């Protein structure tokens, strides 16, 4: 395993207080190597989304440490977190990834615009060509299909060459063909570009595209499956359920 892109150590996240307190994350420790495609899996309520939010600095932790590319992010100010998200993290969400009033291209360059930087035109062209959205750049999200919208979101996430891309159920709203195409693209960006991707999903087929699957239950990591096949993942999930 090479350089570590993201490291979580003993992360605790508690919602509520007193009798109603819920330990959403109960001492999670996990590492994501640079250039690795990891799927975070688990049943509903297992804490997989919470883990992603904490890893990405979207949510605060109640204990433990999260480091992104060597930077400790717990306790960072809002300003520093904003910078971190802008420059070193890419996001792909399940839905509502794009601002409806901006064109596809404006959406892609939005983080750079916010940072006051210019996009590398060669890199941008390469990304959109690879993703097959080069012809759709002047369209607004409402004029794009769901698959195209998610690919625009991918391009946005990758444009700044972030340390890590967090993808939250990226195929959740897509038909199986568009989903497969998107996953194939994520796979390629890891293999060919050395991108680090952390994907939260409950779909064993999606997880089958990853290098590694991390299984969560009740706020703890219970199993890791290397080179997961959909069947192996399903079996793992069944063990959690049973």
């Amino acid at each position, binding site marked *: 395993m090479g350089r570590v892109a993201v490291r979580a150590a003993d992360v605790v996240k508690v919602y509520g207080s007193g009798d109603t307190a819920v330990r959403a994350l109960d001492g999670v420790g996990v590492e994501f190597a640079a250039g690795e495609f990891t799927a975070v899996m688990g049943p509903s309520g297992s804490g997989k989304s919470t883990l992603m939010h904490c890893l990405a600095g979207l949510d605060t932790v109640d204990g433990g440490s999260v480091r992104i590319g060597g930077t400790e992010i717990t306790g960072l100010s809002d*300003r520093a977190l904003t910078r971190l*998200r802008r420059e070193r993290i890419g996001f792909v969400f399940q839905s509502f990834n794009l601002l409806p009033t*901006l064109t596809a291209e*404006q959406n892609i360059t*939005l*983080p750079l*615009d*916010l940072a006051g930087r210019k996009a590398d035109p060669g890199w941008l062209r390469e990304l959109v060509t690879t993703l097959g959205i080069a012809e759709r750049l002047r369209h607004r999200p409402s004029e794009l299909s769901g698959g195209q919208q998610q690919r625009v979101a991918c391009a946005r996430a990758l444009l700044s060459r972030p340390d890590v891309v967090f993808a939250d159920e990226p195929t959740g709203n897509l038909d199986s063909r568009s989903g497969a195409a998107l996953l194939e693209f994520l796979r390629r960006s890891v293999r060919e570009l050395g991108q680090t991707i952390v994907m939260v999903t409950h779909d064993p087929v999606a997880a089958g595209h990853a290098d590694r699957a991390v299984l969560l239950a009740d706020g703890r990591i219970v199993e890791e499956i290397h080179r997961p096949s959909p069947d192996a993942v399903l079996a793992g999930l069944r063990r959690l359920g049973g």
Partner: protein
Amino acid sequence: MLRTAFTGLRVRRLVPTLVAVVLAVAFVAGTLIYRDTAQAALYDEYARAARNVGAALTARDDGRLEPSALDRARADAGVAEADGRRAERLPLLDKRGRIVTDIGLPGYGINAGTVARLRPFDVHAGRLPQTGGEAALDTRTAARIGFSIGDEITVIGAGERRQRLRVVGTVDVTGFGGGRTSTVVLTDAELTGLTGSAGYREVVAALRPGADAAAVRDRLGSGSDARARTGIQLRDDLAKAASGQLSGLLVGIGLFALVAVLVAGFVIVNTFTILMAQRLRETALLRCVGAGRGQVFRLVLAEAALVGLAGAVLGTGLGVLVALLMSRLSTVLGLPAGDVVLSPLPLLAGPALGLLVTVGAAVAPALRASRVRPMAALRAAVPESGSLRRTSLVLAVLAALAGTAITVAGLRGTGGVLAAMALVMLGGIGNFAALLLLMPRLVGPVVRALGWLPGRLFGVPVKMATANAARHPARTAATTATLLIGVALMAGGGTVAATANRTAEAQLNKAFPVDYLLTPAVPGELVPAGVAGEVRAAGFPVAAPVKQGEAGDVLVGTVGAGADVFGADVRPGTAVIPAAGQVRATAGSTIELVAGDRRLRLTVAAIVQSSSLVGDAVIAEADFATLFPDVHDDGLVLVKAAPGLSAAAARQKLDDTLAAHPLVQVADLAEVRDQRNAEIGQMVAIIAALLAFALVIAVIGIGNTLSLSVLERARESWLVRALGLTRGQLRATLLTEALLMALAGALGGVAFGVLYGWLTTKAAFGAVHPLLSVPFGQLAGFVGLAAAAAVLAAVLPARRAARA
């Protein structure tokens, strides 16, 4: 960054904000432009008196300059030509034989002058008088009373001497002292003959080229107590007088402009708050992909600035139109009018204000938007509006306590009427602020109460509307607040007017059951002592002479014996004090009246709820004679017609009786009453018209809130349609919601307006007990209008909702 702001604009959603800004800016810019226009018109009018004048010597107060002053001016080395201007009181009779007055002031006669370029007037038509028996009349008066060239007019000279004059021309001229009284231009000889006075009010001089105006002024003024001014100083003083005449009116309009701006501010805050709520996820997404809090804040402000700028530019354009309209209207209302003057100030101030208000109003919503956490992008549902802040409750309680304390202090206070009114109004502002702060808490229960019975009667749509209107209390409160402000002001104004009218009426009727008042037509003159007797002899059962004198600030009056009216039965050594007068005393106390070196100590027999028509203190005839031995003529005469005589016949008889006394004016109480009613009606109408601006903005705010709510509830609408609500029912739901919001605002406004209208009148009347009069019809009209307008504003959003 800016690009994101630009493309983030969804023009349709910002239209209401735009309209609110446009209207507010139009009102402000229009007012400012009208001020410039009116000032220029007045200035032109006044400047006539300073035209070609290099230096002027003006008599002080009511004095005159000796003819030698003119000779001296003519002899001065720096003076090319000089002329003397005269102005003497010279009442003019209208076609019915009554004196033409302006605000109670009769007209003046002026001389035609000998130097054409130094005349303070322009010949409008015809020519100037050249011999005795000829006169030129000012155009304003000529038009008002219907005289034209060739007609004969009658003026009253010294000693009630009537003189007929033929009109040979009309002139444009400012009335004496800057007023709008009648002006008759005569030859010098005629003016002297008629008035018996010969001195000049002013000597004006045109200078030789190169002469030093200041030096000429100093030479003219040396050895004289008259005011010496250069032409430029004279012009400046006239300009100041011109703007002074307008300031009251402009302050009034300015206040209404302020209300319009305030209401617009509410609408803008509301629009942006709702927009931000709708854009919660977008904002959160922006934060996810790396937008800082500052960037989000600036983004919202940039958007507000863009809308504000657009609205301000459009509003200024509309303002020019408003100014044009006001300029036209003012000709009708007798206010100065002229070509619209566009100066840089209103053209810059209007847009600046629009920008400032919009951006200022967007600050709070922008701050809230900047606090949106990135996590919000990941939640599907838009959260319901948050809990109400405790701080607002604390502030409301503080404001209410302070407001009530100040109001009570105003009502109990002894600091005079103006101070009391100011305190009550200040207290009203405090309580109104409390009401606005409490609105989010009150609006829910109010709306539910309003919707309860209709909900029972009309079923689901009304029940849904009630629930929806009470759903975002803060939003509904802000929306209704705009109506609350407008309607409260209207209702307050209406209540003050109606209460004042009814109280004045009652005081006059109770104390003076008479039909006519005879007063001197010329202020400072008196009704000859014999007049009362003549009127009685002509068959009028009551003709009570009232003598008046001033003891310091106190008007002391006495009513002639034998008349069966209030005040005739005051016993010597006592005084009766009308509550409406200047004197504050209690029954049984002692007051001292001082007139010159005479003093009189009197016991206050009673305080009566009546007007102070006779005087602030009414005393016995004998006491009056002691205090004012030189007053023999009457200040006024109270006349009652014989029962059974028709009003027209009685009036004719009275006019005939008084034919020999042209300087005695008859005030018909029925006419006075009608005139007062008309004046109050006009005042209320003007207030309503000006506030209509605020109401229009408020109603736009309601439409705005609804259309944004419709967008927000698109899924819900879809769900209830799927569950079986018809299109019509969905529309009815929205219209009812608008109606409920409008009613909550308007009824609250009425309640507050009536309360504070009544309290203000109470403070204003001092010791007089005002009779509350609530103009129910008018108020119902306001509420109905607001409701109808709100429903109208909801039509479009309702259609959009039903289409979903």
